[in-house]
């Protein structure tokens, strides 16, 4: 039968080598080839990825300039208005507070404890939220039943769970992880569900036409297609993990709970050390920004660029 690919391949490999095959094809075909190549060239632009220098000037420099200006204005205000240093400390006082606790080893300990909990809690939330999200997205009756509750949980501030968790688990790490999970899981589940809902029905149809059964359809087509929504959910899930963790650490101090950034914040407040409080806030903020910049932003950018969802260059 002439209608199988082997026959199709034979006719092109018969002329030994791809280039030779092209050259010795029928003149009409050569004509078509060059015509098509010309049209293809006309209809596409080379993909221009922004250079490292351009990235530096457009996305790295502006925030740095802004922060430097902010700190300068702060320092200037303190120098001109001369407020009480225990109510309005200057930037130098805050830097002093950080270096003081650095020398005492408290910052390192608090950052290590909180980061470990935050990352571990987030990973557990991913492990719980992903299968749950998949299940809810694919089993409609289940989603109708549980969807509104999951969405509601996303709105409920997870700090509200702290008192209950302390009663259940006492002042242990379990309390902290419970609160983190209640904060992060709903975001991850919702992200995955909305990602799957937004998969174009056409792609599923193509999958069916290509002969994919339900399992391979989910694995090879639906899940990759839902990735942007999933990553958005993960990003939000991390934000909720980190916030919930800080809330839990501020409220639940003592017992077997280790010394985290939240505990450090609470301790500084008890000592009425505003410089220390502001310093800790800055550290918490910096870690949030760092994780976003070092992990989520590149992941998201790479995914969107591959799919042509970042605007620059590409086909017309």
């Amino acid at each position, binding site marked *: *039968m*002439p*209608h*199988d*690919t082997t*026959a*199709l*391949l034979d*006719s*092109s*490999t018969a002329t030994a080598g*791809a280039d030779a095959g092209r050259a010795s094809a029928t003149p009409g*075909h050569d004509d*078509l*080839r060059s*015509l*098509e*190549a010309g*049209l*293809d060239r006309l*209809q*596409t632009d080379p*993909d221009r990825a922004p250079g490292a220098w351009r990235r530096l000037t457009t996305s790295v420099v502006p925030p740095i300039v802004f922060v430097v200006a902010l700190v300068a204005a702060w320092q200037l205000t303190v120098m001109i208005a001369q407020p009480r240093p225990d109510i309005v400390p200057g930037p130098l006082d805050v830097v002093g507070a950080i270096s003081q606790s650095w020398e005492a080893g408290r910052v390192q300990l608090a950052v290590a404890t909180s980061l470990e909990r935050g990352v571990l809690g987030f990973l557990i939330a991913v492990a719980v939220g992903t299968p749950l999200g998949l299940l809810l997205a694919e089993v409609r009756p289940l989603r109708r039943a549980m969807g509104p509750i999951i969405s509601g949980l996303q709105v409920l501030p997870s700090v509200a769970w702290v008192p209950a968790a302390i009663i259940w688990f006492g002042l242990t790490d379990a309390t902290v992880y419970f609160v983190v999970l209640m904060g992060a899981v709903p975001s991850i589940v919702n992200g995955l569900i909305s990602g799957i809902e937004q998969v*174009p029905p*056409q*792609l599923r*149809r*193509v*999958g*069916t*036409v*290509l*002969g*994919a059964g339900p399992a*391979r359809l989910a694995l*090879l*087509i639906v899940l*990759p*297609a839902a*990735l942007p929504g999933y990553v958005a959910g993960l990003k939000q899930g991390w934000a909720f993990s980190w916030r919930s963790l800080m809330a839990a650490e501020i409220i639940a101090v003592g017992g077997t709970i280790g010394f985290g950034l939240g505990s450090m914040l609470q301790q500084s407040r008890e000592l009425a050390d505003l410089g220390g409080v502001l310093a800790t806030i800055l550290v918490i903020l910096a870690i949030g920004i760092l994780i976003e910049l070092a992990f989520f932003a590149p992941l998201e950018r790479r*995914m969107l660029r*591959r*799919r*042509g*969802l970042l605007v620059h260059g*590409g*086909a*017309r």
Partner: protein
Amino acid sequence: MSEQTAIRIEHLGKRFGAGPLVLDDVNLSIRTGEFVCLLGASGCGKSTLLNLIAGLDRPTTGTIDVPPGGAAVMFQESALMPWLTARQNVELALRLRGVPRAARRGEALELLDTVNLADAAEKRPHELSGGMRQRVALARSLAQDRPVLLMDEPFAALDAITRDLLHEELERVWRRTGRTIVFVTHNVREAARLGERVVLLSSRPGRIAGEWRIGTTEGRRIESPEVASLSIEITEQLRKEIRRNAA
């Protein structure tokens, strides 16, 4: 089924739920290796008929016989996976067909070469023009290696210059692979340019309202006089069918 007949449709009727009849007593038999254009105005059930042949839907009455290999389908939108390169999109079809991993890459590149896209193999869909995307989709449906290729207005969204080239490309692929092609379109000239046989469907309900066979199909262009005169003839019949709906 005789060896010469690829698709046989007998007394086919289709209605969706309690709605009006979409297709009414359609009888059509398509030879192996034939290029048939299904032509009709909106609402004539062209796409419904194609879905029935593809097995994506079931007939209400009547029967459809398709060859055991089934049919590959190409849609108006290329519907390529945006996260895969052109080559990986073709490889996906090969993988779902059960081609072993080691053979996929080479075969995908060969298939892309048949649609003159070997150089764009590592590009992603968003980097390709509309015409290039449709050619990747064509390569993908060839990768399915089914005896029948169903095409649902595949070039409707393209500009005239690109469409003209793709007609040539498709004709070449058809001659080379000997596939049976059922090509749905609402463009009379396109049907007259491509088909060995043009089947006109009336609208609401869809019935076969006319049929034209083209003797020599070699060397036809969209601007050829025989294509133009056939178009005039078909258009006249098509307008008659459309006018009937006004009464």
